[in-house]
């Protein structure tokens, strides 16, 4: 499509604009893109990833970089919106990112992956859990350091049936991509099993000021437990309202709820709530070091997906080092074949891009903290 001659003429005419365009492509560095929501209402899910990347890169650069080159960060905001994510992704491509750490939300990730795929850039998300990202086979360049939603739903259902031996279960979700996806899996797993019955399956309206109607409905359904797919703000509202109405219904949820904020918000009502979350790595020495580094650099505890992002950054840069170049095939091959030590443990990636050795466990709030149930 590009007409060289025409291009030359045009460039001559509007040569002035060239100054603006000609700034890219300067230093010889390894470029690590970091994409996710850095502003807007979901910023708190994206900013920890920047911090993780900054700390990893600082560390690696101090040790001489990757392949002898310094690593440079390209941080771009996608506000978790697919339409913005395509712009973000194109910007990454334009600025010559070699690998991308991101995106954060599944929707934005799906929109961006097509662009990275066409431009031969591997991308690794610390947080996008939508099963289709790895299972559909549409995104061979996609990797993630978090397990997919169906694994979580499986764990929740197995726990409800095998450990708690429940018969009647209500499934709720927040109508969102993540929550509803999870709830759908939980529902299909439960329906395939004859031991329990789904007595209620409904979506609640996120951000609502009051959930008493749905809570009454749960009560009327006589469910022994609620499996909730969604995030902690809604979960804490529902749990609190159930407990205030003196209901003792068991509450099982996902890693969107396995957040300390949930306990702080729901306070005494959080006690006894089950939530799945990434396997406990608090004993891992790298994880301890990573958390320490964050505290030292930013004066606060790290936020959501910090360790996943930290591990992803290490895995990506390690793969380039192992591959000996930034060549797409070599890097993806290295990700799939070479083990790497990360705060999440020793990991590598399977054919579909899921991390081997990363999974979920069940946690319960006991005396105000999440305790892993073995």
């Amino acid at each position, binding site marked *: 499509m590009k007409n060289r001659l025409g291009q030359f003429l045009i460039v001559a005419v509007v040569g002035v604009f060239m100054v603006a365009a000609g700034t890219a492509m300067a230093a010889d560095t390894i470029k690590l893109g970091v994409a996710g929501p850095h502003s807007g209402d979901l910023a708190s899910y994206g900013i920890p990833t920047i911090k993780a990347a900054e700390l990893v890169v600082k560390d690696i650069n101090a040790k001489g970089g990757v392949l002898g080159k310094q690593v440079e960060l390209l941080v771009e905001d996608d506000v978790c919106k697919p339409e913005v994510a395509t712009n973000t992704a194109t910007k990454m491509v334009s600025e010559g990112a070699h690998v991308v750490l991101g995106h954060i939300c599944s929707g934005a990730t799906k929109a961006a992956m097509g662009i990275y795929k066409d431009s031969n850039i591997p991308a690794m998300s610390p947080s996008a859990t939508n099963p289709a990202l790895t299972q559909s086979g549409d995104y061979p360049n996609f990797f993630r350091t978090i397990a997919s939603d169906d694994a979580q739903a499986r764990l929740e259902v197995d726990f409800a049936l095998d450990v708690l031996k429940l018969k009647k279960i209500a499934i709720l979700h927040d109508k969102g991509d993540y929550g509803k996806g999870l709830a759908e899996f939980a529902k299909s797993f439960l329906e395939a099993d004859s031991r329990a019955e789904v007595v209620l399956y*409904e979506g609640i309206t996120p*951000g609502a*000021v009051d959930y008493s*109607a749905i809570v009454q409905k749960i009560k009327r359904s006589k469910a022994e437990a609620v499996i909730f797919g969604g995030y902690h703000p809604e979960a804490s509202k529902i749990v*609190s309202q159930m407990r205030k109405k003196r209901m003792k219904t068991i509450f099982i949820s996902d890693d969107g709820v396995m957040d300390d904020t949930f306990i702080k918000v729901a306070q005494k009502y959080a006690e006894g709530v089950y939530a799945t979350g990434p396997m406990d790595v608090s004993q891992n020495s790298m994880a301890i070091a990573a958390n320490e580094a964050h505290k030292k650099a930013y004066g606060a505890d790290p936020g959501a997906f910090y360790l996943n992002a930290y591990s992803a950054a290490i895995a990506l840069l390690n793969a380039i080092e192992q591959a000996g170049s930034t060549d797409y095939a070599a890097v993806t091959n290295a990700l799939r074949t070479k083990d790497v030590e990360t705060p999440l443990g020793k990991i590598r990636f399977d054919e579909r891009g899921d991390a081997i050795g990363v999974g979920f466990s069940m946690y319960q709030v006991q005396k105000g903290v999440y305790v892993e149930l073995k």
Partner: protein
Amino acid sequence: MEYFFELFLGGLTRGSIYALIALGYTMVYGIVQLINFAHGEIYMIGAFTALIVISVLTMMGWNQIAILLIAAGVAVIYSSAYGYTMEKIAYKPLRQAPRLSALISAIGMSLFLQNYVLLAQTSDFLPFPGLIPDFEFMEPYAHIIGSPELVIIITTTIVMISLTFLIKFTKIGKAMRATAQDRDMAMLVGVDVNRVISMTFIIGSATAAIGGVLIASHIGQINFYIGFIAGIKAFVAAVLGGIGSIPGAVLGSLILGWTESFFTGYISSDYEDVFAFIFLVVILIFRPAGILGRSTAEKV
């Protein structure tokens, strides 16, 4: 039957919450015919100010009731101050401009205030302490309705009654009604229109602040975005009841609350909002000015 009653009370609570925000919407609209998109933000700022005061006072070890009262007081003062300032900056210069320009200015203000709080404070949800104690005498009914809900319902009633009183019987209320009817005429007969508009913003913002403190304490958490979602619903409620009418705002809010509650209870919460909006459309088709709105038949 008990289930019906529970849903009824749930709807009443929800409706009262909407009403606390909708009252401010409807007052401002009545006076300046402006959809004050940033009204929800004022509510959010009220809640945030209260949280800040609460945290500081709690650190200093004050007593809970005192904290609640002081926090509510400071929230009211600050929200009113924000409402007042907002009017001066974003709406007053636009009195003569096309109505839509003022609407866009309000949207800009809303974005500004959201991000101002986001940047100055945090994007995370912050726990908001439950300031309203569980009353002893409520314990037998706790499985149906809690103390905070009761307080919200009572407060809404009090606020509505006092606002109605204010509008009907006080001097400023008369000036407000005059301004709402015909701004130029009111100016001619000596009403200080600028003062009336400022007062409207202040009163509207104060009710939003009361709402902010109570609702935040009921829900137990706040972030910078709560104003937008609640604001839209309150706006819908105000229009449903007939925008510009104070009893209308309350009635609209309650009807919206009940609609949502019963629909969730008997049908499905999946389509709760869809149904609420369809209901709104149907009402407006049959009563184009809302339930209590006077349909201002244009004089031809």
